[in-house]
């Protein structure tokens, strides 16, 4: 039996889909058999982030409604042997599936795959309830902003009331410069407020935009900072003990000199 992980956040635009794509690809790079499920019915995007938008024939709603077999709807990513995508329907809405159907789907997928990652839609309504229904564990993505942290807190409460305990936190888009100046909440601040376990820190990285433009998850890049951060999270999820990245930038004389002269 594989593990079903839901990636959620409450607030939109904090990086759920990017995180899902990168963790999924990261697991595949580790040789795990993994399927990504886009639960954002009506606003599908995981397909374009993965660069698989041209290969969709059937979708999640087709599977649930019995218009096709599960295998027919799964898209295999040709670049990584063991990576699959189950796309969302674009022309339907959240009410096209219910939590029981999602539970059933997750159970079926976890027979076949070692890791099932569900990309949850923003919000706390039906789509959220569907996405978390079949999950064994939850990952919450937030950014160091009051709105995102507030929504994350709400999501933690809702997960708790649905019996999903101990969600893990990913703090996305940390800007070391701003943290250093005291103009961005740091890791400790956010952990103190939300009181949940930290799973990883992703620094703000322009390469995320470039890789999304290309439809190639950043985690495949050997040097990008965000790539290393995602790889670390994958290894932590696989049970390895990987220390968290230091987000403070080097503040030696030379780097200060560099800042002063702006080179």
């Amino acid at each position, binding site marked *: 039996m594989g593990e079903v992980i839901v990636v959620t956040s409450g607030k939109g635009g904090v990086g759920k889909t990017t995180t899902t794509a990168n963790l999924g690809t990261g697991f595949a790079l580790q040789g795990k058999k993994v399927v990504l499920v886009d639960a954002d019915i009506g606003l599908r995007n995981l397909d374009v982030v993965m660069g698989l938008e041209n290969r969709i024939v059937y979708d999640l709603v087709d599977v649930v409604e019995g218009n096709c077999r599960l295998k027919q709807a799964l898209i295999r990513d040709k670049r990584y042997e063991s990576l699959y995508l189950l796309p969302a329907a674009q022309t339907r809405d959240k009410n096209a599936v219910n939590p029981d159907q999602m539970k059933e789907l997750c159970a079926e997928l976890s027979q076949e795959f070692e890791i099932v990652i569900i990309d949850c839609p923003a919000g706390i309504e039906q789509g959220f309830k569907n996405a978390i229904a079949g999950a064994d564990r939850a990952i919450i993505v937030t950014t*160091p902003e009051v709105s995102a*942290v*507030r929504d994350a*807190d709400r999501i933690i*409460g809702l997960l708790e*009331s649905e019996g999903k305990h101990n969600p893990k936190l990913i703090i996305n888009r940390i800007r070391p410069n701003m943290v250093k100046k005291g103009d961005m909440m740091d890791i400790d601040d956010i952990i103190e407020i939300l009181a949940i376990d930290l799973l990883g820190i992703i620094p703000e990285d322009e390469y995320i935009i470039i890789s999304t433009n290309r439809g190639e998850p950043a985690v495949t890049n050997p040097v990008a900072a965000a790539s290393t951060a995602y790889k670390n999270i994958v290894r932590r999820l696989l049970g390895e003990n990987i220390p968290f990245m230091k987000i403070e930038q080097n503040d030696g004389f030379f780097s200060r000199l560099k800042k002063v002269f702006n080179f």
Partner: protein
Amino acid sequence: MFDLIQRLFGKDSAASKDVAKERLRLVLVHDRVNTSPQFMEGLKDDMIKVISNYMDINEKTMEVHFAQTENSVALVANIPVNRMKRGKMLKE
């Protein structure tokens, strides 16, 4: 101007992250109370249990709520007392 000089020397009078953190702390007190309907009821029931060991109170008219000032949140309870219980004055 002074602010600019402070910034130049890397010292910020009021780091905006501290403002963010404080605002979050306060808003989350309210969020957590308001989004969990059982919270206030549970709190009230437990308070009644404890206080009833010491005095008879009027449960029907008691009021428990949160009050917010500029930078703090207080739990305010208004609990009418009918009568004290004599036995509890002594240590058990």
